[in-house]
């Protein structure tokens, strides 16, 4: 079976508030999947349902081809949103404990812990207590702990939050290695550039409801034809069909109304005898899509 995680129509209600409302998603092995949404949108609850930490009111979860049993969960690596290892324990002791919890024997856990600590650049801190580490270091130790047992599915809740750019780069590098190994990766984040860099497919939720779901490139393409970027000295006095114009870094960015074709912008420039240095049909950034979709959903309420 090629599916690492499948969530079908899950709903979670706390008191009378529906925090996840009929959400579905599917993640294949060897794929990196982005779970997006504003604060309180239900991302963490969805992850926790996927890991059987909490149970949904309705819907089902399939983990690595079956029920989310304890056995299946030992093949999952999980990094929760809040980072908090045992402050008074030594780094190596905690990693061995995490490995043991994933059914590794102590000797193997020790070997793997050393290897992972070397990989995240914290080997020399192995005998230090967690309280002596910075927040970023603690996060890397916990990240190492989540990958210690070479999981088939890696679930990361806001993995890059609070990390400096170097550590973000390191973490991304390690995630790419894990992906090459064949592991499926699911992570939630607010950082859209990270998603664009790493993910093939995404799910955007707001107030527990699905707003967008699918391949990132397709989602962008579906909206991309509405934007055109032109680099020129000046712009024509008017371009038919354009509803919004922005000037960015010496370029003009046009948002076109429904039914307007991109070449009409180029024609307007040519008609006005303006020399065009560069013309491109711009795909919207994920950030733009995120803001548009969430704003639209909120305005609709």
């Amino acid at each position: 079976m090629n599916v690492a995680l499948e969530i079908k129509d899950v709903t979670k209600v706390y008191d009378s508030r529906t925090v996840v409302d009929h959400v579905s998603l599917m993640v294949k092995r060897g794929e990196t999947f982005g779970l997006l949404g504003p604060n309180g949108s239900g991302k963490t609850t969805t992850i926790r349902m996927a890991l059987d930490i909490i149970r949904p009111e309705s819907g089902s979860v399939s983990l690595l081809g079956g029920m989310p049993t304890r056995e299946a969960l030992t093949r999952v690596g999980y990094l929760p949103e809040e980072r908090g290892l045992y402050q008074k324990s030594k780094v190596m002791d905690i990693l061995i404990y995490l490995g043991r919890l994933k059914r590794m024997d102590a000797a193997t856990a020790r070997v793997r812990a050393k290897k992972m600590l070397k990989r995240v650049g914290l080997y020399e801190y192995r005998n230090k207590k967690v309280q002596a580490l910075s927040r970023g270091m603690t996060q890397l130790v916990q990240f190492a702990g989540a990958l210690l047992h070479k999981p088939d599915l890696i679930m990361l809740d806001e993995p890059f939050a609070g990390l400096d750019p170097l550590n973000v780069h390191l973490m991304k590098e390690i995630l790419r290695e894990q992906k090459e190994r064949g592991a499926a990766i699911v992570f939630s984040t607010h950082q859209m550039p990270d998603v664009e860099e790493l993910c093939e497919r995404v799910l955007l939720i707001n107030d527990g409801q699905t707003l967008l779901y699918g391949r990132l490139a397709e989602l962008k393409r579906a909206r991309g034809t509405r934007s055109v970027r032109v680099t020129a000295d000046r712009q024509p006095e008017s371009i038919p069909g354009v509803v919004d114009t922005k000037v960015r870094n010496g370029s003009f960015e046009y948002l076109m109304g429904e039914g307007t074709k991109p070449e009409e912008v180029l024609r307007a420039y040519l008609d006005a005898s303006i020399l065009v240095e560069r013309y491109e049909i711009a795909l919207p950034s994920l950030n733009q899509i995120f803001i548009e979709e969430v704003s639209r959903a909120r305005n609709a309420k």
Partner: protein
Amino acid sequence: MLETLNEIRLIFAEELRRFTRGKGYIILTLAVPTILLVVMGVILTVRAVSPDREEPKPIGIVVLLNDFTFAPDDLQRFRFLAFNTRQEGIDALTKGTVKEVFVIPEDYLKTGRVEWLHGKGGAFSGIDPGPSDTSSAALRAYLRTTLAIEEMMPELLARAVVGATLESVHIGEDGQPVEEDADTKVGTIVVSLVSILLLIFSIMIGAASLGEAVAEEKESRMIDVLLTCVKPLSLMAGKVLAIGTAQLIMITVWVGSVVVIAPRIADIISSAFEFPINLGLLVWALAFFLAGYFVSAVIMAGIGAVATKVQEANQLAFLVIFPLLASIYVLGLILSNPDGSLARVLSFIPFTAPSAMMIRLAVDGASALESVASLAVIVLTGMALLWVFARVFRAGLLMYGQRMSLRRVIRALREAG
């Protein structure tokens, strides 16, 4: 089942390792032996530097057995002061000339019985009093030497090997034998009260630590990682067992140091008192400690799970600590009437039962049947609470920033059931 046991074992080992390596725990565990060693050191130092320190009092000995005689060095070697009759020995004891008197009766060779006459002390801790190690050793050495210099008749040889069975007789200030009970009770009560306070203190520390640990894991969401690896029941059971074991180690160190060091101190200041230990009471105290801890720990683990923050768990700990402390206040009432209805009722309330039963056992106010019944009530209550809290535990652990209302508790129980 095997998987659950493995999970419990894993959690148990890690929690025990982490808890017992804590500075606070190590300091607290070593506090009692350290204090006792310091006390012993101070006494030894004071005695060593004191120029006018008193010579230890001699040991009185009355030999009514014709076959035995004293060689002059026996008296010197063993610090013995010989008397011809039992009454002379009692008179010397009453006047304080001797520390104690051993009476070797005429039928000693047959029975092996030696009477031990003593004044205050001996009964300090109640049951099973005995002379100090020094006195016992002197008597034993004397008997063996004396028996050995006689012709080696088979009965003498047997007696030389076995030595003597001491019969304790407490001589009052009026020179008359007194019942053991009066002194015994006071000593027993003092020791029991101290034991009860230590045990309650230990239960409070253990239970509060457990609640705090669970709340901390919940606050840091480490609990999420743990719950993807083990069942909530395994997590709770492993924690309760680990911290209980840590507390048991602490109690063992405390009791062990008292058993080993206190008699040495008593021996140094031998004129003051003896310090035999009441092992029977210790076993009961341990049983009630474990049962009391079990109930408190289960509740505190539940509290830790429903609390939103560590601070809140500490505040809610009063739910466990208050009844434990309250039980100390009613000890006086139990003491005044250990067979009364209040004492009996408190013996069957899980929170007050450990302390109530310990004090009642100390003054012989409870039968073995009552003790077992009380123990059963505490353990069964603990198991029932474990069943309830294991269900609330899962629901409570997973609620962040929200307090666990009664309605949610009932819902968690219904869903789990």
